[in-house]
């Protein structure tokens, strides 16, 4: 199983995920991991918790599409995406993206690409609780612009 895509309530273990990617092939020379964490403040206000909603079934399909497009674009040995849902506390891990490749450029670019697409296309919605109030997080223009990079310049090295 080269690629591993999971949406789960429970936490994940970076070390175990990294080990899986390293062991996929003796030709793996570069492993890039990204972990997203719940920050303790948003816009200077301390947060109580972050709740992630998703669209079961559709989320997994969108992750499959994202991973397939990264696999077409770069020579990769394996990809892992783990996205948590449910209620998370400050400093909890939210998302893991790991990419194993022969060389570093492909691993960095694919991980960056996967995160941009997770931010803008995968079916997740964040709701933040601050001092008893709950608020849906707005999507950021910077995320849309970041994702747009990949359609503008397919040969970016």
């Amino acid at each position: 199983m080269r690629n591993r895509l999971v949406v789960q309530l429970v936490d994940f273990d970076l070390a175990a995920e990294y080990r899986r990617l390293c062991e996929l092939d003796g030709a793996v020379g570069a492993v890039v991991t990204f972990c997203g964490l719940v920050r303790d403040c948003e816009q200077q206000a301390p947060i109580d918790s972050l709740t992630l909603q998703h669209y079961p079934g559709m989320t997994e399909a969108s992750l499959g599409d994202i991973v397939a497009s990264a696999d077409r674009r770069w020579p990769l040995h394996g990809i892992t995406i783990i996205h948590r849902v449910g209620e998370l506390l400050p400093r909890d891990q939210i998302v893991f993206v790991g990419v194993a490749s022969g060389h570093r450029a492909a691993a960095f670019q694919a991980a960056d690409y996967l995160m941009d697409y997770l931010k803008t296309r995968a079916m997740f919605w964040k709701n933040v609780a601050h001092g008893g109030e709950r608020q849906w997080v707005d999507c950021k223009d910077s995320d849309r612009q970041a994702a747009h990079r990949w359609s503008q310049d397919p040969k970016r090295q």
Partner: protein
Amino acid sequence: MIKLLFFGRLGDATYAAPEVFEASVGLTAAGVRDALSSLYPALGRALFEPQVLVSVDRVIVDWQQPLLDGCELAFLPPVTGG
């Protein structure tokens, strides 16, 4: 019947959106949105925001997509995962 799903802020209890919608010949996703806007004006304003997408049976579609009885219609505000 068509099953309705509202995600993110569109699913907030304040909108009190219905869970199903009666199927009819020639009905489209846009038609459901129009009907919901008449019955629930606040929800309607949120559904008409330009970044809201619509999916039928978990595939994003055009608003003019015809709807078959028994399908699952979901209204999707801009995602904020990752």
